[in-house]
């Protein structure tokens, strides 16, 4: 297995892997299940099977629906399952089991039961060259349904949020953006704190314009902010948890800057960007129209790389939006 992507560096994947090790060591009720988790095919689950054994690291057949609800049942019986999904679109396959079952048991039973399951999507968004069925970002969908949803944009947050997700008494979905999995992060030393769910992070302070940046776009926003530093002083807010969203943090930022752009790698229509812009329009004082930088409506990522890249937002699109917002 030595050839598999190694988490042995201070990068994003290492952070997630360490979080899994830490939670499994800390709490006997935590266990892991999913496809090829034993060999750690995604890189994120490396070393867990040798360390914790097959009683706590379950390689599943290709039965996403059953093993997702299996997690729900185990949770009812006091366990804390972490379920890995190799592909983001597998969330579609288990939408019923997450949204209509796991999510609803607490209310439907009048609080008799809690479902502390973590859905770990270790590779969301375009993988560049994996085409239509492997390149979506379904986090806006889960947020709409009310699933606590986390999209860490930095390695330290990947560690801290994954731990918080596992400890949370409710179902939580964790989306690791594909472009970040292989990234190393010099700001991450491999020893970080738990990051509570629902708390945004001001990644960069600035007075002219607020950019809400999600997942890999935290990096995009930092790049753009530095590039444009002589023209505009950008504040970057990384929500980290996309639902429940930290509206207070954003309110403070927009109170200061009066301008808002959201960069988020999901579809425009009813996406996370829509929610952030809508709430800002309803409740905050804006001096200029807010803007979204996202994927087009109903996007299906085409195979050819140039087409794929044309649909995923990036620094160029964010820069253009900043320019427009300042006009």
């Amino acid at each position, binding site marked *: 297995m030595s050839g598999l992507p190694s988490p042995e560096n201070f990068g994003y994947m290492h952070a997630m892997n360490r979080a899994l090790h830490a939670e499994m060591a800390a709490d006997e009720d935590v266990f892991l299940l999913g496809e090829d988790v034993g060999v750690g095919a995604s890189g994120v689950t490396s070393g867990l099977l040798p360390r914790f054994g097959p009683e706590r690291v379950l390689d599943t057949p290709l039965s996403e629906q059953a093993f997702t609800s299996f997690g729900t049942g185990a*949770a009812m019986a006091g366990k804390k399952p972490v379920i890995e999904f190799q592909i983001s679109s597998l969330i579609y396959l288990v939408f019923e089991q997450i949204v209509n079952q796991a999510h609803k048991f607490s209310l439907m*039973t009048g609080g008799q039961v809690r*479902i502390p399951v973590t859905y770990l999507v270790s590779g969301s968004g375009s993988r560049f060259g994996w085409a239509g069925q492997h390149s979506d970002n379904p986090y806006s969908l889960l947020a709409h349904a009310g699933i606590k949803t986390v999209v860490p944009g930095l390695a330290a947050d990947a560690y801290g949020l994954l731990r918080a997700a596992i400890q949370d008494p*409710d179902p939580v979905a964790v989306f690791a953006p594909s472009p970040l999995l292989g990234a190393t992060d010099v700001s991450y030393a491999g020893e970080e704190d738990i990051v509570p769910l629902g708390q945004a992070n001001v990644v960069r302070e600035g007075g002219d314009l607020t950019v809400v940046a999600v997942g890999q776009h935290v990096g995009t926003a930092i790049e753009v902010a530095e590039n444009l530093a002589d023209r505009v002083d950008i504040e970057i807010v990384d929500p980290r948890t996309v639902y429940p969203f930290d509206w207070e943090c954003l309110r403070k930022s927009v109170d200061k800057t009066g301008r808002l752009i959201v960069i988020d790698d999901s579809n425009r229509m009813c996406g996370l960007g829509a929610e952030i812009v809508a709430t800002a329009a309803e409740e905050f004082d804006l001096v200029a129209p807010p803007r979204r930088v996202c994927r087009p409506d109903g996007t299906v990522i085409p195979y050819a790389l140039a087409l794929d890249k044309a649909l995923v937002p990036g620094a160029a699109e964010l820069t253009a939006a900043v320019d427009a917002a300042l006009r």
Partner: protein
Amino acid sequence: MTRENRPALYRSMKLIREFEERCLAMAIAGEIDGGIHPYIGQEAVAVGICANLTERDGITSTHRGHGHVLAKGAEPRRLLAELLGTLEGFNKGRGGSMHAADMKLGILGANGIVGAGGAIASGAAWAAKARGDSDVVVSFFGDGAMSQGVLLEAFNLAAIWSLPVLFVCENNQYATSLKLEAGLAGGATRRAEGFGLVSRSVDGMDVEAVESAAAELLEGVRAGRGPAFLECRTYRFFGHHSVLELLGVEFRDPDEVALWRTKDPIPLLGDQLGEDVVAGIDAAVKETIDEAVEFAKNAPSPDPKDALMYLYAGATAVRPGVIL
């Protein structure tokens, strides 16, 4: 099992029958919002199976779940209080008929989605196994559910991991209007065997037959020999849902319905107990249900301000539908 428990089996079936008849009338009268899927006719299945279970064992149930819940030992008055949407219901009025659950008794929930329970049961069974207990989980479902992907996946999961689950198919021969043969290729037990499940079929109108078939299968399940499957051939005496009764709609041949009504499991067993015993039980059951109705009708309703109480187990800020 021996003949000694016949009165208990009879009582349990009669309790369900009486409960369901009362509910059906209340549903038709508009007193139970959303109505019910009556269990009447199928009592021998829930009772025969649950006679083998302890409070530590679990069950998952269905949209037609009152029988399972009562047979597993739930208090009728609290179930009825749930159906009336009150705070005295198991689910504090939040679940209603299709979501009745009593975790203390291992009742992991009725379910509004056909076939959803089997995988949940498997997870709970795995946890029991991990604890080292000999507890089992029984998953009830209908013949219609046998074509639902997630349940078929769960058969496989339970089999490869040798989980202590008993899958119970209540084959009442219809899924709403769909006849068994039009929906299920291969037959129920043959299909289950195809997933490596030890499988049997039994007359679901005979509570003692169900009880002993389940006992046999559960012995292996409890001993760690892996999951099993039991088909119970049964019939519902009323329409699929109370609203169809209200409308007077029946998709089945009336002669067929009449024929099956002659196989009613309750008199079948009652005849063996003697009139006195039966009369005594019947009267006691009637009293229990009368009391349950009284209790439920007087139970307090939840406050609309608490509509989203329990949405999350942890403190979580939820934004309301209108922000002024």
